């Protein structure tokens, strides 16, 4: 039996393949569960994430029925903080990647369609962006801008991460912009804008979706790292990274403070990259089916 080539328009085939892939289903389930947890959890939590419950008697309380994940050095409930911090971490990562994808797709599409010198100049710009280690760039920017608000963190993360997607889109566009169906659309009177948006763009949606999914995992880790260092999400606002940071000082006596957000981070990042791999398998027409 030959499998039909799947494309972004052919959702039935893609959904069918995803449903047959247990690893991806597990990843989707885990992520959906985590998203529901961080969205709904803070509403149900018994304590406020910033609430210092009892600074004299409740510092570093062990996990118990009252405080499932214990309390931290300021007697704050760790579970409440992990849920609220998870919300920030996930929202920051997804928004930043959305921005990455937006800028990357627009840049890549423009360069790929323009060709010639414009393309060369635009892609050398991308090469320059890719040649600077992103972590160093972020450290430099955030060191220069103290106490950065969350929305600005999203913008900074987004604007330092779109280079790879731009290159991906540009290469994809270069390879299909003379495809027969593009010529056919032109021969039937489609305008350049229409060709770009409704004939070329859908062809790159699959690879972009895969790249963006994998990028979410990266950005979660990046944000956690920056927040751990104290230059990302600013306290008292919780994020998984800064909760881990808070806990390191007392890692021997109160390991639960760092452990809880750390585990969440690992689980989410593994699930995101499993989902990215699964999407790639489901979308890739060129690869042989796994049996």
């Amino acid at each position: 039996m030959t499998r039909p080539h799947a494309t972004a328009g052919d959702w039935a085939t893609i959904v069918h393949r995803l449903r047959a892939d247990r690893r991806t289903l597990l990843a989707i389930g885990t992520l959906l569960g985590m998203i529901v947890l961080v969205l709904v959890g803070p509403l149900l939590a018994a304590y406020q994430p910033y609430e210092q419950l009892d600074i004299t008697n409740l510092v570093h309380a062990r996990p118990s029925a009252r405080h499932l994940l214990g309390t931290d050095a300021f007697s704050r409930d760790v579970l409440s903080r992990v849920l609220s911090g998870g919300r920030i971490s996930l929202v920051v990562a997804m928004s930043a990647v959305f921005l990455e994808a937006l800028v990357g797709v627009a840049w890549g599409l423009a360069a790929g369609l323009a060709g010639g010198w414009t393309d060369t100049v635009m892609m050398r710009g991308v090469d320059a962006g890719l040649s600077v280690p992103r972590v160093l760039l972020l450290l430099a920017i955030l060191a220069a801008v103290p106490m950065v608000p969350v929305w600005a963190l999203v913008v900074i993360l987004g604007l330092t991460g779109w280079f790879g997607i731009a290159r991906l889109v540009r290469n994809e566009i270069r390879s299909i912009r003379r495809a027969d169906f593009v010529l056919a659309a032109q021969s039937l009177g489609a305008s350049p804008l229409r060709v770009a948006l409704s004939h070329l763009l859908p062809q790159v949606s699959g690879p972009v979706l895969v790249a963006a999914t994998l990028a979410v995992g990266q950005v979660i880790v990046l944000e956690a790292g920056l927040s751990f260092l104290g230059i990302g999400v600013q306290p008292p606002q919780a994020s998984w990274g800064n909760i881990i940071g808070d806990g390191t000082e007392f890692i021997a006596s109160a390991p639960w403070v760092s452990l809880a957000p750390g585990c969440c981070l690992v689980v989410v990042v593994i699930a995101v990259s499993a989902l990215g791999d699964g999407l790639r398998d489901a979308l890739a027409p060129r690869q042989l089916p796994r049996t």
Partner: protein
Amino acid sequence: MTASSAAPAEPLLSLRDVRVTFRTADGLITPVDGVSFDIARGETLALVGESGCGKSLTALTILRLIDAPGRIAPGSRILFDGRDVMTLGDRDLRAIRGRQAAMIFQEPMTALNPVYSAGAQIAEVVRTHTGASRSEAWNKAVAMLGAVGIPSPEIRAKQYPHQLSGGMRQRVMIAMALVMNPSLLIADEPTTALDVTIQAQLLDLLRDAQQARGASMLLITHDLGVVAESAQRVAVMYAGQIVEEAPVVALFAAPQHPYTQGLMAAMPRAGTRRERLTTIPGTVPPPGAWPAACRFADRCTFAWSRCTTEAPPLHQLGDGRTSRCHLVEEPARRSAAQGARAMA
């Protein structure tokens, strides 16, 4: 259909001295080099030649679909329905594409966009050229699918190209080309990618649709069988030039150019038993490697010294016939050549 020679009216399409140049690493090449022909209203002209002779590029020039690094050389003239295609603005050009002149491509699997359903692709053409609403355009697409012989068009309209058979995909392409009732159809090897049984059906469909609409057609093919069935006139292309043009009956009765004769001899015929099919030795040389004088000289069995020193002009033979061969001026050699051909 009236005979083309008797129609004094202005042709629907007129190409004069059309050249296409490509800038390559090895310099400028001219894969289409001075092509001229007319197509009358309601007429079908077949453009015949081997792969690489420039026939598809010629077709693309009509709607100015040549992209960089290729370009239509200045001095080329293309008149369509009284308008100078070479000087049209982008907007006017797009208004002609698909509405007054539409192309049908060889390979519908790649010419249809894989991410849209058959109906959506036809409806897009309608919406590009008219102010039709989504549902009007969709209904028109479904009706068109029915008109090109697709059973249960309501269901098929919602299917994607990969869910359709090769024949059905080509019917969808034809429906896209016909939906605006264009006065010129440009069919680039429309049946080459299909099974033989389906080829005949689709040629009939194209011819019927064309005749019902009184449209003209430029039919590009390398299959002389297709030519005999569908065209009134034939232009034979070799290495970027037209080497012979004639009404279809006259061409089959007495091909003038040695290349045309070779093509005919290479055609398998029902009812004759031959051990092997005749071939023309060699291949079409790539643009840039064309012989300086007669471009066919190195593959021609009749070539003599003149053929490698002097480029033959396109001789007018009367009755709408032309031939780009020195034999026209040398009747003695010509009869000797034909004698030799008859003996072979």
